[in-house]
């Protein structure tokens, strides 16, 4: 149903024109909050997070609900939701594997069913570059058709791959949902608390001796802009979102002013054991391969389709991480 047709009352009379409603999951996150700010002038926002209820300015209705709960459907009954931006993927560092699976796979399946039932016409899924898997034999510039090998590496990333598979199914099975899947590179910047952002924020950063894989970083503001663009320009499909700039991980660590803590990298099981012993688990052992082998994304498809140009350079990103240490 087009947005313009969503403003009629029960008698069929033209009601006062309302902004289309967008449901945003994972709304408590720093990235989601920036996306909400970007969308607010044109859309009404329903913000949902299972962790906490977040308070925004007017125009945002905020809820603390788990997607898997029955009450979640009430949001679709209550609001005339035109589009969904699903950023509520639980990250590998946040919950144990089984809870992640329930939330990321079963929760997303439920979300898609509701979108279909309530005739939502735009769905954005925020995935991750982790789905490609970090493999020594990966070519550089992986495009969107590259196989998703993460599940072959570790059971801990199966939920990420299955979430994507679900999204692929709905992309083709329900064309009216207009599903767009975004696979961003490392998202960093103020407020971001994923593994790589935490490592760059820390004073001492574990590195695997002899390995400094190529990495790409995108600033949280640029990523928010990319999601906003993807929502507003309706182009369904799968897109890598990355910046056309690359740096070795250990160079990035140096540039952020971190002290490197070398961890023996061979044999691999020893490296994983040592990483597991680190207090606070700053580098989860199942992500060790991402700090050994490159996963370099081809950014061109997204750039050409949406006209996306990142504003923040690597130097600006690293300057921010240096500044937070003083």
């Amino acid at each position, binding site marked *: 149903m087009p947005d313009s047709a969503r403003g009629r009352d029960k008698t069929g009379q033209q009601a006062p024109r309302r902004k289309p409603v967008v449901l945003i999951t994972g709304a408590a996150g720093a990235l989601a909050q920036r996306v909400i700010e970007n969308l607010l002038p044109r859309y009404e926002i329903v913000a949902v997070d299972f962790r906490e209820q977040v308070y925004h300015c007017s125009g945002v209705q905020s809820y603390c609900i788990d997607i898997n709960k029955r009450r979640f459907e009430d949001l679709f009954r209550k609001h005339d939701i035109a589009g969904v931006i699903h950023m509520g993927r639980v990250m590998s560092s946040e919950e144990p594997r089984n809870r992640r699976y329930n939330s990321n796979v079963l929760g997303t399946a439920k979300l898609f069913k509701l979108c279909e039932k309530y005739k939502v016409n735009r769905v954005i899924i925020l995935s991750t570059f982790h789905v490609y898997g970090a493999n020594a*034999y990966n070519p*550089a510039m992986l495009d969107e058709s590259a196989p998703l090998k993460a599940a072959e590496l570790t059971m801990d990333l199966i939920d990420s791959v299955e979430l994507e598979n679900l999204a692929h199914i709905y992309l083709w099975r329900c064309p009216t949902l207009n599903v767009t899947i975004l696979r961003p590179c490392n998202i960093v910047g103020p407020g971001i608390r994923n593994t790589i952002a935490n490592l760059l924020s820390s004073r001492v950063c574990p590195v695997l001796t*002899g390995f400094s894989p190529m990495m790409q970083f995108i600033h949280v503001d640029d990523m928010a802009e990319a999601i906003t663009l993807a929502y507003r320009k309706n182009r369904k499909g799968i897109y890598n979102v990355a910046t056309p700039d*690359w*740096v*070795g991980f250990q160079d990035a660590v140096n540039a952020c002013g971190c002290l490197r803590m070398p961890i023996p990298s061979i044999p691999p099981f020893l490296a994983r054991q040592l990483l597991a012993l680190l207090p606070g688990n700053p580098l989860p052992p199942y992500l060790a391969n991402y700090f050994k082998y490159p996963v*370099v994304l081809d950014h061109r498809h997204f750039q050409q389709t949406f006209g996306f140009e990142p504003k923040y350079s690597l130097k600006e990103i690293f300057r921010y991480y240096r500044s937070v240490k003083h």
Partner: protein
Amino acid sequence: MKTRTWLKKRLVSKALDKQLDAIEKPVGSMGYDPWGFNRDTNKIAAAIFSPLFRHYFRVDTTGIERVPATGPVLLVANHSGQLPIDGVLIGYSIATRPVNPRLPRAMVERFFGTVPFLGNLLNQMGGVLGDPVNCASMLDQGEAVIVFPEGVRGSGKPWGKRYQLQHFGEGFVHLAMKYKAPIIPIGVVGCEETIPSLTSLGPLARVLGLPYVPVCFPAVLPAKVRIHFGEPLYFADDDADENEVVARTQTVKNAIEALLREGLIARKSIFF
């Protein structure tokens, strides 16, 4: 990063710095490209290899002008000597030729990526993981690409099989056809004698996850290296079937064999 800056300052002469800067190579703001090439590491490696190239291996080249100044080209050579010294010497000779220097990208064995330090170092010097997708990307952006179709079959062969070309994979011919890239056959004479190997310890190699563990003299010998660049070969992108591609691969192999034969006849001594 600091070590790299320090090494560059100490080792790279202004002339070499200027010469390599003149070769256009798109990199990001931190000096890297997506395949891990790093301008400064490349310059440091060139500075270190310069005396080895001139005084240790005393490399002579013939026909180097046959490598085109621009555009995609495949530099296809015989592989020998346990370590990828031949690739580095071919690359250095083209990067420092007086007219139209280029920085070729060498396709390196996949297992190097799993070796600490060495994998990153080779990438930073300009090596690229030997994957058809990478090779296609390189040709698509007009690079000169060094390919060893024998792979580890060539580099790991023992002394008894020296200068006997091993099986050639056909992938490079497909790519040459698709990207309309000429193939320059190259015969490298001398690298076989830099690290002569008696045999490979197969079981130990399997345990270590390496393609071979050579039984050899534990040093790189100062054999004189001669690199012969042949006439370019052109293959049309004509949807040829596999038999035709195999025949074209054999044409390239024959050309390299001829260059090796001529080079071996011309050389008077292994070390001089």
